[in-house]
């Protein structure tokens, strides 16, 4: 009896484990999850993804995380300067210059802004990046994409990925279930 119970438990654990190991976004063409590449800062680590060059017009990495309690509850993401401040660009480089004024965006019932930047890396190399900040009540969902694609392609790829049902489910959960 005891051994049967153990065997049953092991089987359940394996099934749960396998299900857990199967990332939902494995189904999203071109994207796969990678390890969060940055050291711990004031916010818990988020999730990081890489998109293959064929799917995104150049290899793109996307870093996404919630920032709970970091948003003006009434005004949401008010302006481009707020995107400069909150969108985690400084994780990649402290030196970035906006390419143009940002744009209003809406992802999964959350409103915010995105803005494209030129990043200067420590090596001196230039990267393009797109910062994204979305508000939900007093919380933020921020994302930053960087890579080889041009800013327009990168922005489109990042927003499409965030809008997939798998990602919107995760974002909702990360923001407390919304």
């Amino acid at each position, binding site marked *: *009896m*005891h051994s049967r*119970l153990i065997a049953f438990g092991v089987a359940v654990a394996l099934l749960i484990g396998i299900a857990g190991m199967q990332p939902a976004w494995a189904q999203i063409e071109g994207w796969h999850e990678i390890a969060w590449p940055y050291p*711990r*800062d*004031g*916010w818990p680590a988020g999730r990081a993804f890489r998109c293959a060059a064929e799917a995104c017009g150049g290899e793109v990495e996307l870093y996404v995380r919630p920032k*709970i*309690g*970091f948003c*003006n*509850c*009434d*005004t949401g993401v*008010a302006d481009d*300067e707020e995107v*400069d*401040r909150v969108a985690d*660009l*400084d994780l990649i*480089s*402290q*030196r*970035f*210059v*906006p390419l143009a004024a940002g744009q209003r965006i809406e992802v999964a019932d959350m409103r915010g802004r995105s803005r494209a930047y030129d990043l200067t890396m420590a090596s001196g190399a230039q990267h393009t990046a797109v910062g994204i900040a979305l508000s939900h009540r007093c919380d933020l969902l921020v994302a930053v994409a960087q890579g080889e694609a041009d800013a327009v392609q990168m922005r489109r790829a990042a927003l499409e990925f965030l809008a997939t049902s798998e990602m919107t489910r995760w974002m*909702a959960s990360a*923001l*407390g*279930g*919304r």
Partner: protein
Amino acid sequence: MIGRIKLVTLLGIALIACCCAGAHAQQQVIGAPPEASNMKLVGSNDLQARSAYQPTIHRQGDRYIAYIGHHGGTDDIPDPINPLTGKAEPNGTSIVDVTDPANPRYLHHIPGQEGKYEGGGAQMVRVCDGKALPKGDPSAVYLLRTFGSEAHEIWNVADPANPVLVTRLGGLKDTHKSWWECDTGIAFLVSGAPDWRTRRMTQVYDLSDPAHPVKIRDFGLPGQEPGATGAVPTELHGPISTGPQGNRVYFGYGTDKGGMLQIVDRGKLINGPKEPTLDNLRFPEIARMPMSAFNGAHTTFPMLKMPVAEFAHDKDGQARDIVMIVDEAIVNECGEPRQMVWFADVTTENRPMMISSYTVPEASGSFCERGGRFGSHSSNESMAPVFYKKMAFIAFFNAGVRALDIRDPYHPTEVGYFIPAITAATDKRCVTIEGKDRCKVAIQTNNVETDERGYIYIVDRANTGLHILELTGPARAAAGLP
């Protein structure tokens, strides 16, 4: 079979443990008495059930007047009724006569900016006598307050029941906790200048003649100025100046994240080059002390030349320059790293060092389960001799106010506390769980101030009002009060 019995036993133990944890949650209920140690209630006022931010107590002749700034209204009651006028008024500034602390008398409400929570109200307030200001009207008493996020205002409150607007400095995108030197009139206004890259920075004004404000300069951390690019440093929360004598301004940046203490030469700040260039912003800075990314600097309260008994026989360093730094908790039910109190030794100004810390033990009240915020928010800012460099009072949200013996700042010790009872006016605080709000009602002591008589004033963010307290027992003795 034995395995099954063990399993059942373990489940039973777990169930009992869960039940016990619930029983110890100490959820506040209406009608229950306040929780207190070495502090007692003297008087209270409901402040018309408005969410309160900052109290300032000012002696006007033989009267003591409390001026209390408010946040905006709530979803349920955006504009509470002012019983004195019978009108619904957006939360602004409450004016309460506390000459008799056992019977505080509500005198007047100055409406603030329309808007809810942090989006409205008039949170901050400072008061200077006209006769103290170099060019003030000697018969006037001036109240400096924020008007929501859009302006600073100065009112004449010589007759506190009938305030009169004197000046308005508008066109801002945010405001917060400013500092005003009454002997010089120099004000360090926390503003959001529209062209700066941060919500909150400093605008230095000469308000020695409150009717005719003179702007001196804008100031902030390099990277926040107009036209800058790259990472934007943490926004300002508030400064405290030691005036021309001390010649220092202690700026606190951040609320609950990426905090920083910045020590600035006041003379260079006021008289130095004013264009907001990188060099000019760096010119008055003496030192910065970055804190953990987990904590912010809401209040940076200087206590200079503090004699430390332990060092009394040392040939050097017997007295230390200390800055008490208070973080602000902003997320309900412990949804962030603990926000607490830190003491920095800034005696060697260019090498400031954190030397001690203080927090309320969470388990002493199961505070993470009570509802609302748990963690520090602010300290008293009065430098009246009755408590200065001896006792500090810390607003700790659902843990009420905590009295600290800070005579040895290397080892601050809690000597008392007071957690007011909730009332029918106390507003709920919610967290989102699986997409639904789950709300609890708990006291949210937001700010604390003291007066020169030794009374302690605490105000509640969750609409419970003003409580006036005094120390008792060993805490009173530690403060040297009779």
